[in-house]
């Protein structure tokens, strides 16, 4: 009887009720297991098919185990240049977007100023706009300009586009870190005679650095994986996703799976290492002692990079 359970009166439940309760308690864990398997399935298939040995170009059915592609990952014409282009675009756009986005985040969190609401909206909009619309509208801009370096579209226009869509993600990630920032540390530095410049580089910057690194990591992975916007701004330049798209029609070479798997492992490794280091850096610090009656501000929660 549920009433008895609610009021806490002890009753001896029947076997059926016990079984029901057991299922009730564990069904969510079973669900979690299946959900994670479902999420991991495509990654596993991608990794598995990087060891495939297909006779022709098409790599969609299993033929046999082979290490050939792993031993010769750039054994497909143009693949090395394509990956190099992608890494170049990702590197440049990450550097610029991280710098610009961090400044915006600093302004938004540290200052009260007119227009902060509009700024927030402007930061949010690119994340809520379909990629195809962003890519298409950029292309119309470049076509309307109609002159180099914007048209015909090329490496430069890809970088411009990637910086554009990365800024918002950087702002959001760095801002999350800044909210958990104790302003007293800066005030203490100033009291001890440091000027604003020194305070920023010796106090503020080291503290928000993990947030900036997380943002850069996110920007890099978004950039290196972007197909939709890049397809509109690439022209004759080929990035790794554009190469895959072109290859998908005739059959994706096994080497593409090798590079995809390698990218995945590198990204996961990076996140694991930064999380581990951050965890170690955070652990030794004892929880701040509070005066009686003082409450912990909600902004004290710090976000792990994966949550941002």
């Amino acid at each position, binding site marked *: 009887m549920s009433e008895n359970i609610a009021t806490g009166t002890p009753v001896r439940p029947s076997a059926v009720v016990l079984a029901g309760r057991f299922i009730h308690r564990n069904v969510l864990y079973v669900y979690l297991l299946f959900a994670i398997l479902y999420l991991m399935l495509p990654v596993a298939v991608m990794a598995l098919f990087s060891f495939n040995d297909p006779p022709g170009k098409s790599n969609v059915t299993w033929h046999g185990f082979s290490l050939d592609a792993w031993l010769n990952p750039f054994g497909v014409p143009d693949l090395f240049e394509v990956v190099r282009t992608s890494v170049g675009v990702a590197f440049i756009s990450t550097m610029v977007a991280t710098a*610009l986005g961090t400044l915006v985040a600093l302004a938004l969190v540290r200052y009260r100023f007119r227009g902060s609401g509009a700024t927030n909206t402007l930061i949010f909009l690119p994340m809520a706009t379909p990629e195809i619309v962003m890519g298409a509208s950029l292309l119309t801009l470049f076509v309307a300009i109609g002159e180099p370096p914007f048209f015909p579209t090329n490496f430069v226009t890809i970088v411009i586009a990637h910086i554009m869509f990365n800024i918002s993600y950087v702002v959001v990630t760095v801002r999350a870190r800044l909210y958990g920032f104790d302003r007293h540390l800066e005030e203490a530095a100033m009291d001890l005679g440091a000027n604003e410049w020194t305070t920023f580089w010796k106090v503020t910057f080291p503290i928000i650095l993990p947030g900036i690194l997380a943002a850069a990591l996110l920007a890099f992975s978004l950039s290196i994986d972007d197909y939709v916007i890049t397809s509109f701004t690439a022209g004759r330049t080929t990035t790794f996703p554009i190469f895959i798209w072109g290859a998908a029609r005739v059959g994706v070479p096994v080497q593409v799976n090798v590079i995809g798997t390698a990218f995945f492992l590198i990204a996961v490794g990076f996140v694991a290492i930064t999380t581990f280091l951050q965890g170690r850096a955070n652990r030794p610090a004892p929880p701040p002692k509070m005066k009686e009656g003082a409450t912990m501000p909600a902004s004290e929660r710090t976000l792990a990079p994966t949550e941002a």
Partner: protein
Amino acid sequence: MNVRKRLIGLTPYLLLAPGLLWLLIFFVYPSIQMFISSFWSGTLETGFAVSLDNWTTYTRAIDRYQPQFLRSLVYGGAATIICFLIAYPLAYTIAFRGGRYKNLLLFLVIAPFFTSFLLRTQSWKIILGDDGILFGPLKDFGLLPPEFRVLATPAAVIAGIAYNFLPFMTLPIYVSLEKIDGRLVEAAKDLYAGPWRPGGTVAGAVVGALIGGALGAALSYDIVVLAGLGLLVGILVGTFFISQSFLRVVLPLSLPGIFAGSLLTFIPAMGDFVNAEILGNTQTRMIGNVIQSRFLENNDYPTAAALSFILMAAILAMVALYARVLGTEELTSAR
């Protein structure tokens, strides 16, 4: 001294300037340019001329590409519902039962999305293949008829979209659930919130049947079968898992997350063309496919710009309506 003060007042604007200028020039202005371009006539070779008379581009575009617009709406909506059904229990389990493994579990949920979008979709093509690793064995054992197929049907496209945009639903819901103070649930239980019966059974049945029917319609499968299936699952979930404390405490407090998550899923889902291209066929082309081919293959910039503009306007209108119905302003502040 006065100059110094004024300079300090300027600091936030100086910090903002480079980033915001970049967004104004390469995000805001292109949208305006796209609108102008939709009134172009001419070709790339001869040059373009703007004329208001070219408003007919819009009527022609709507006329010709109505099915693709409708398909984007239906596929995007169905994928959003599926995402929600998968993501909510997932986020709930991690937030409330994750314990000290919360961050690890969250990482496991996000990690797959560090692989390339296109390769993930390509993997689904392998998995869902007619004689692929999923259906091949089932057909060999006679559990499925040999002509059964998912690839190159709406179901494959919707499944691909739902998979690829799942984190956009999971993360906002997780964030809103994670913020909930567990003591509120305890307080509700102290105040006699128990199982929700028979309300949960009835509500589960109705919601389950509705969702099943809607998905059946979207997938162009048998509506009655899917509605029946939804009814069954709904009754089970509603009877055994929806308690009053969930209904009255947890669910309302997670609404901002649901709101943000469904928008962040639906918007890119509607504009997607990658899944339709890789997993679908010519009968599953969405409006994104049309925009892309008009732009990049036909160089038909005016029509493509008009279509993009209609897509954006339609999405904005739906978002505004949705925000009004749900009456929440959490969207832009959700972080």
